[in-house]
């Protein structure tokens, strides 16, 4: 008999605690971001779409078509790199760089393995398209201009890579 009433009272107390938690939350500010008007604050290392930015000093991309990124890509999303050696320049360059945005898994392995920091994953996440053919992109022809925080991060990366390359080559 006593347990009957004790059960009721314990039950009511636990229910009131739950109600109290919900009530506390009425007075907190909403946490949503109103998307098209307010953009999210992405991390520096955010892995968006792959781009080959133009180096502002050389006014050209930094790729030498060494094919390391194509070898390490787990599902061959970097489809074709065409190497060309121009007269009078010691290093080869890439004439065409076909990248398949549809099959890329955004794993960052290609960026990590590139010795010249030629490619980087940008902040671009809104890459949906109506036409599947538009997802196969030629990164050299795109001439992407990188800007913002990501640009500084990228520049710091290629200073590191250049010194590592010099260490390796002597």
């Amino acid at each position: 008999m006593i347990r009957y009433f004790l059960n009721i009272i314990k039950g009511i107390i636990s229910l009131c605690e739950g109600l109290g938690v919900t009530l506390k939350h009425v007075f907190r500010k909403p946490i949503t971001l109103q998307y098209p008007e307010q953009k999210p604050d992405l991390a520096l290392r955010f892995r968006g779409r792959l781009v080959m930015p133009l180096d502002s000093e050389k006014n050209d991309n930094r790729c030498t078509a060494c094919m390391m990124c194509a070898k390490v890509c787990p599902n061959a999303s970097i489809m074709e790199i065409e190497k060309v050696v121009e007269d009078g320049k010691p290093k080869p360059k890439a004439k065409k760089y076909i990248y398949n945005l549809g099959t890329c898994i955004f794993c960052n392995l290609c960026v990590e393995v590139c010795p010249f920091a030629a490619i980087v994953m940008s902040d671009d996440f809104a890459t949906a398209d109506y036409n599947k053919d538009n997802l196969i992109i030629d990164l050299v022809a795109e001439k992407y201009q990188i800007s913002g925080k990501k640009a500084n991060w990228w520049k710091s990366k290629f200073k590191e890579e250049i010194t590592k390359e010099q260490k390796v080559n002597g």
Partner: protein
Amino acid sequence: MADIPLQLEKGRETDEYILSMGPQHPSTHGVLRVVLKLDGEVVKDAIPDVGYIHTGIEKLLENRKYDQIIPYTDRTDYLSAVNNNLAYCLAVEKLLGIEVPERAKIIRVILAELNRIMSHLLWYSAYGMDMGALTPIIYAFREREEIIDMMEAMTGGRLTHNALRIGGFKYDLPSDFIPKLKKFISHFNDRVDEYEALLINNVIFTSRTKGIGILKKEIGINYGVTGPSLRGSDVVYDLRKIEPYSGYEKFDFQVCTGKNGDTWDRCIVRMNEMRESLKILTQSIDLLKEGEIMAKVPKIIKPAPGEVYAAVEGPRGEVGVYIVSDGSEKPYRIKLRSPSFSNLSVLKEIVVGYKIADIVAIMGSLDLVIPEIDR
């Protein structure tokens, strides 16, 4: 006046019928089909039917090099990607005989524990929605956003982190990681108390989960159940204590267990595990010292022929990776042991005798992730 029969005549007993809790159902947490044999509302038999999302990862991995495999291991148990990465990296490092530097070990522990909290928070929200409570999901996801921001600052991805590399890490912790971690630790304990008060201690919830789906010790051990589902039945089995890996022997934490093995105990085990993970995170900030983060690993990874098995305590149980190598740069066979597969196999034992509404409660408390089962 007709005679009132005292019991149904022979041949007029209620029929059993077969209900297929089909592949598309809001509370099977994925594409799982459970064929139920029901007698009215009481369950007589439950047969899981898996394979709807089989992608053939294990065969795919036979054609990839060792360092290309890490993004794939993210995607089996996508709620705690770092634990899967860790199991794989530990296996390959055992095969190559590499010793990972100290700082890398501690950072691995930090990421793994953050992932454990993330996974348990998602279990909490999904379980609340199964029970009919529609607010816990929003609160838990708010905490999850904070953790995901931290993981994104470190690895660059929100769900498929691809965080670890063989031998350590490629990039070190960013400068704003430790302040964010300290801020997270400062308020998370109160939040866990709030979540308990909102859902777990609620009288409606306890009357729906206490005494339901009791898993006995011997049955759990015989079927190979691991993780919080087994610890709810008062079995002290945690791989982080029994065979410590990646520096866990330096941390001081307790293994949470439950007493009776029913659904409520499994819930309490998970809530307590969140608190223990927070303790580990607090200790790890002090243990973090300056140092290297990457061991000396050959450029082309070609381990000697042999086989190795490495296991890790994930949020759902024991995540294992078994590699057979034949001396080339691609593995000969990789087998992934997923905890949800073994946990699901015990479904028939714990569901029989209860009602339809209890099935949802029991399956939710086992915390299954279906892509992990089908791989």
